[in-house]
């Protein structure tokens, strides 16, 4: 690891100040991606700004028809939170299948979505459940947040403080995990909400995406059979030694069906 300064401010505004003062500073949340990256000397921040000491970024709370998850809430806390399990079981399920137990004890929602790894699980939840990303300076609709591979709408110096998940009528998440890394080869969140059906796919493409044709079909009949014959094109999908683009395309439909089964089960 290269050398860096380490700070752990106690307020969001202090974080903003630290980031503004140093353009080469980087924010660390759970560190599950950043620290391995630093260990391999693939990043050289001048300062690490740790969010660990900011109480307002922690925890899960119900807020009307929504559940608000603080950016620094570890995956395990979402997975085992009784309110989440009660009201959005698909979100608890998703959180329980991120990484492994130790990763879930450290990794955070805010860190995951700010990193925007194409194979991360949480982006499927944020987009599939039509969540709102709350940042240090504004609110961003899920559909506007993820802009590309490892790219988001966050401006320099802006950090995620929480994500507000509206409680859906029903939702399901199905993941086909990578045999080595355990990330999502394909993960699909299907949700039926007051505003319609949403189908969000992670892992398959450079960034999380929705499948309009599936959403329309499920809006008609919310059953796995409604997805029969609906496929996504392998063009532009990810491909590696464990899963080619055509296999991923196949899995998108399959995981979508399984997510519907879970939502209706």
């Amino acid at each position: 690891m290269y050398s860096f300064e380490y700070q752990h401010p106690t307020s969001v505004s202090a974080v903003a100040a630290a980031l503004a003062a140093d353009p080469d500073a980087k924010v660390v949340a759970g560190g599950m991606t950043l620290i391995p990256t630093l260990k391999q000397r693939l990043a050289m921040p001048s300062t690490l700004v740790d969010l660990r000491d900011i109480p307002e970024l922690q925890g899960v709370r119900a807020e009307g028809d929504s559940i608000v998850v603080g950016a620094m809430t570890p995956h395990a806390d979402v997975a085992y939170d009784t309110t989440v399990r009660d009201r959005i079981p698909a979100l608890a399920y998703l959180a329980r299948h991120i990484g492994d137990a130790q990763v879930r004890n450290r990794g955070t929602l805010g860190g995951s979505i700010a990193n925007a790894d194409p194979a991360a699980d949480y982006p499927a939840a944020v987009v599939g459940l039509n969540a709102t990303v709350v940042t240090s300076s504004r609110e961003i609709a899920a559909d506007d947040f993820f802009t590309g591979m490892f790219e988001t709408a966050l401006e320099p110096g802006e950090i995620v403080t929480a994500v507000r998940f509206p409680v859906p009528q029903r939702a399901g998440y199905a993941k086909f995990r990578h045999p080595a890394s355990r990330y999502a080869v394909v993960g699909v969140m299907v949700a039926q909400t007051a505003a319609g059906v949403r189908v969000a796919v992670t892992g398959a493409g450079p960034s999380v995406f929705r499948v309009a044709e599936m959403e329309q079909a499920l809006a008609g009949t919310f059953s796995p059979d409604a997805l029969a014959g609906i496929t996504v094109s392998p063009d532009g999908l990810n491909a590696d030694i464990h899963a080619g683009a055509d296999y991923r395309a196949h899995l998108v439909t399959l995981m979508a069906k399984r997510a519907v089964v879970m939502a209706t089960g």
Partner: protein
Amino acid sequence: MALSVSMTVNGKPVTVAVEANALLADVLRQTLGLTGTHVGCDTSQCGACTVHVNGRSVKSCTLLAAQAEGAEITTIEGLAAADGTLHPMQAAFKEHHGLQCGFCTPGMVMSAADLARVNPAADEDEIREWLEGNMCRCTGYHNIVKAVKTGLATMQSPAQHAAE
């Protein structure tokens, strides 16, 4: 630039001077001489470095020592009783031959002990799922699973509660 980090390790308060980029695993092993915590990979996969931080299992190779400021850390060296009597999970690993070369063992035991917090009645499938963050190349996991099952049961037994 060195930082001063205070934490509680195996029940004892310690303050160490560390570089900002020092990993908790390295500080435990090199500064504090607690070499039972092993490092088996650099991608946060193998779990040999698992310790408890504030009561939860985490991979100490993926945590800066600076991030552990103020934390309660338990390593494999802190699991047995002061007189050397094995913790129920350690005893179960011995009873069921849940270790061979011993390298993954500290992380495996620490991870298994944390399962008692989350799902003390875990069945075989749940134990296997929980252990996905800990690789073992020797045992084929069969005896580890048996050991964890026994260890969880012993941790729950009334005799054990009375002792605690």
